[in-house]
């Protein structure tokens, strides 16, 4: 038996949005402790790791482990119909369907079919992060849009006290500096200065899916994968996103 109730649709919307940037079918693993999801995009460039403890829900009943695979598009379409203030009830039916009920005065009931899982265990990348930073999510989105005007990749360089994000292409170049003087850069910790380049589409799509989270933690090392992380709601949920660097 699996029944999960959230008092706001906001977090579900964020989850569906974030995973839709990478995969078409999502396998959630429900345990008595909470809901989890870990998946890579088909090209294995990016990975998403969602941890959503039972304490983050209004009601969470799960008597054993379940894996449920949904078409992300199906889930996203239903959740787009929800207002952020709607209460979301999710129930796994015995006929292999997922029942989603949106409540806000009246009640709307959706049933979507689960699909067969092509589930495989994915490890997390082993990376020692020499650079960690925390930025306002709005400025991250702005900077990525700035760089996107010129380039489809972004070089991120960390020195003591500042981050430089830049891009270049045949049409020109762009760079943005955020230093400790900018309130948008909430934290910066540089153990070892470094630089790495990443595909901008992945970063930009992911940063747009952050929902209400107002700051974003970013960790990377020279020529290594980058990790972006934001809290999902205020009760312990968490979304991590890893992205491989570009080939030099």
């Amino acid at each position, binding site marked *: 038996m699996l029944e999960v109730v959230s008092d706001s649709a906001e977090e579900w919307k964020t989850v569906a949005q974030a995973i839709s940037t990478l995969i078409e079918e999502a396998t959630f693993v429900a345990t008595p402790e909470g809901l989890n999801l870990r998946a890579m995009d088909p*090209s*294995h*460039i990016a990975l998403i790791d969602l941890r959503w403890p039972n304490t983050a829900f209004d009601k969470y009943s799960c008597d054993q482990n379940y894996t449920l695979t949904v078409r992300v598009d199906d889930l996203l379409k239903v959740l787009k119909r929800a207002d952020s203030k709607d209460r979301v009830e999710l129930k796994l039916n015995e006929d292999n369907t997922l029942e989603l009920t949106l409540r806000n005065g009246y009640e709307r009931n959706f049933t979507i079919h689960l699909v067969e899982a092509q589930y495989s265990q994915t490890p997390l*990348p082993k990376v020692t992060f020499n650079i960690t930073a925390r930025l306002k999510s709005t400025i991250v989105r702005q900077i990525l849009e700035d760089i996107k005007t010129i380039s489809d990749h972004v070089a991120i360089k960390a020195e003591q006290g500042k981050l430089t994000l830049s891009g270049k292409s045949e049409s020109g170049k762009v760079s943005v500096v955020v230093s400790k003087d900018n309130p948008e850069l909430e934290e910066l910790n540089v153990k070892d200065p470094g630089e790495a380049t990443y595909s901008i589409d992945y970063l930009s799509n992911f940063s747009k899916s952050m929902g209400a989270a107002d700051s974003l933690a970013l960790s990377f090392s020279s020529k290594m994968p980058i990790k972006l992380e934001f809290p999902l709601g205020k009760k312990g949920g968490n979304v991590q996103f890893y*992205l*491989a660097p*570009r080939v030099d």
Partner: protein
Amino acid sequence: MPLIKRRRVSQHVGVDLGPLVKGRHIISLEELNQKVLAIDAYNSLYQFLTIIRGEGGEPLMDSHGNITSHLSGLFYRTVNIMEKGAKPLYIFDGKPPELKEREIVRRSQLKKNAESMMYEAISRGDTEAARRFASMSSRLTESMVSDAKSLLSCMGLPWVQAPSEGEAEAAYLTSKGVAWATVSQDYDSLLFGSPRLVRNLTISGRRKLPRKDVYVNIVPELVILNEVLKEIELTREQLIDVAILLGTDFNREGFKGIGHSRALNFIKKYGRLEGIVELQSELAGLDYQSIRHIFLEPSVTDIDPPVWKATDKDAVVKFLCDEHDFSRERVVSALERISLPSTSQSLEKWF
């Protein structure tokens, strides 16, 4: 029509294992990002020569009368997979095993027949038949092969000269981990021990069904050797015996009256060819030990780690457009697709 001076080169038809291969995985080109693909070059070039033809069945040609269908296929299809970050490694056939000689002579005769049928169809104005016979008469000449190698070098791509069968070398490099998968339309690389085979990669897209005015979508698929063997409950050695019953490139005719299910049942029942009491007299007339040996101990070689270099755009344009009359506009725009800043690495590197 100018006749091209040609020497005989080995040709691929392969073993028809299709009906026995279960559990194909549909894959997207994106999944091949940063993966090395050992591509059977002759198999691909034949596909291009057969498929890439004009309305009347004639191959593409430059203004000097040289056939260019194989170059067109090799260039545009390779660009498609490179654009998704895959690393192609073309493997060319070397000297065919002696047992293949008879088969090569037989095919050469078939092609000659098809060629005269084609001219006959053209003269009576039957374009559908002409097209069919034209594709049956496709021949790969040594100059086509050397053109293909030149093009790959201009594109910055490594290629490998196999000592004998390209398919065997591709399987060997894949089993050694140099490549992630072999790429071919044939299933022979499974018999040669390739752990992974990708089919329909260089011919994906819309394709006309032979003899019908119907088009189908061909999508790339991944076949995993272990899964195939597990599904039919055979070892690779036993699958080779099944293939010998069905007919391989080294005993094309196979065994009379034996199809997929009988072949499979025989090997399941008796374990190996030697045990099949019903076929003792036929088996006595076939050197099946040598055929097994070709699949189990093929002539292969180790290679230096392959290097993928930047595409020499000017050289590609000069070769394709100046020498072989390709459309400059199309070639340049295809080159742009692979000259984007290099692609992303795979996270697997950090697992």
